[in-house]
């Protein structure tokens, strides 16, 4: 699910839900209708008596939906009205996950439906502590983290997003691999194209798995640079492993292609990260993409040249 398989159709019906046996005084927690988020919320507050107001975010999680505005002021306001929340509870307070804040204007929700928005902690696991502390969040509860485990869990995402492009790239490499003195040979397509596909996969692993996992320890700040460093390191290890059996053209192609692929894919991981700014991402892309394309082009030429 988290990996993006069938994630687009994984929604909970919007509305008001009860956890335990809530009364008119019980707190109201607002949730997106992405089933994974909703299930985590339900699990974390299982021992409490609370209301959960599920709003329609088209099955998207709070953070992404807030960025788009579907987890937004209008949706909360109209859902409060539709569920007649003011007849169910005696208070006028909604507890909204902090990461919903980019989509919500608390003062406008208050104006729209009379309910005051109180921002809860970033993580649902902190909700019981937050509620028992009189709805006070500690500094840690308000901070977004991006630990090694959190990064590692996300690594398959890029691969599942990219798999179609990976298949196309495999076909291109296979065809390029067959070009040689005989114009095109199926035998060399298998051997040379196959080797090139292995190099491509190594680039994907370097950019999509190794770079995100080692992120804070890799040099540089731009993800494209971090990915390039990983890719270059992996390709140098491979070249040392083959100790000169590849020939100059193939060796150059391996080094450049693996570095470029790793750099590009690592750059895509900015979308999964919790601390990159869109302005910064666009800046690094403007600088990195021409270099990545140039490296790929030279790698392609060197690879074809090595076939003759």
């Amino acid at each position, binding site marked *: 699910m988290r990996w993006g398989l069938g994630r687009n159709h994984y929604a909970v019906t919007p509305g008001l839900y009860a956890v335990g046996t809530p009364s008119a005084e019980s707190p109201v927690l607002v949730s997106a209708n992405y089933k994974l988020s909703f299930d985590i919320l339900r699990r974390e507050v299982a021992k409490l008596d609370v209301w959960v107001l599920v709003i329609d975010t088209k099955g998207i999680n709070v953070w992404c939906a807030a960025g788009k505005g579907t987890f937004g002021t209008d949706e909360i306001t109209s859902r409060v009205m539709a569920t007649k929340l003011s007849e169910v509870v005696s208070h006028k307070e909604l507890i909204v996950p902090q990461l919903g804040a980019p989509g919500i204007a608390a003062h406008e929700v208050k104006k729209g439906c009379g309910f005051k928005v109180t921002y809860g902690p970033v993580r649902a696991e902190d909700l019981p502590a937050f509620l028992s502390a009189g709805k006070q969040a500690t500094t840690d509860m*308000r901070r977004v983290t991006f630990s090694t485990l959190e990064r590692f869990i996300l690594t398959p995402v890029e691969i599942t997003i990219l798999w179609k492009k990976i298949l196309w790239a495999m076909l291109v490499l296979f065809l390029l691999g067959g070009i040689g003195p005989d114009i095109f040979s199926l035998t060399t397509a298998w051997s040379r194209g196959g080797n090139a596909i292995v190099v491509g996969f190594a680039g994907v692993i370097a950019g999509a798995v190794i770079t995100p996992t080692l992120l804070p320890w890799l040099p540089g700040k731009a993800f494209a640079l971090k990915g390039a460093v990983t890719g270059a390191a992996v390709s140098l290890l491979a070249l040392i492993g083959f100790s000169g059996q590849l020939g100059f053209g193939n060796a150059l192609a391996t080094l450049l292609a693996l570095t470029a692929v790793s750099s590009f894919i690592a750059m895509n991981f900015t979308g999964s990260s919790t601390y990159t700014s869109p302005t910064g991402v666009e800046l690094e892309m403007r600088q990195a993409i021409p270099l990545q394309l140039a490296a790929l082009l030279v790698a392609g030429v060197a690879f074809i040249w090595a076939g003759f």
Partner: protein
Amino acid sequence: MVEHRYLEGVVTLEYDEPTCIGCGMCAIVCPHAVFIMDGKKAAITDRDRCMECGACAKNCPVEAISVDAGVGCASAIIYSWLTGEEPSCDCASGGC
């Protein structure tokens, strides 16, 4: 915990202190503690930690904060370059 640092001096976050009424909302919503409350006014502690999510600007009742918030995913940005539309999470397979 290791603190992640991204590119420096690039974010579009702007804060106009005289307008601030000291409600403290920005300090609550910021996921990277860019804002803190310094007496009756909000203050920026570390601008380069900002990821331009826009939560502070959206929740500031007096519009003392502005930031060019958007989708920071590379494939969304490539898609917007190609189509001329705003970057959006919809371009890939719905993931951000």
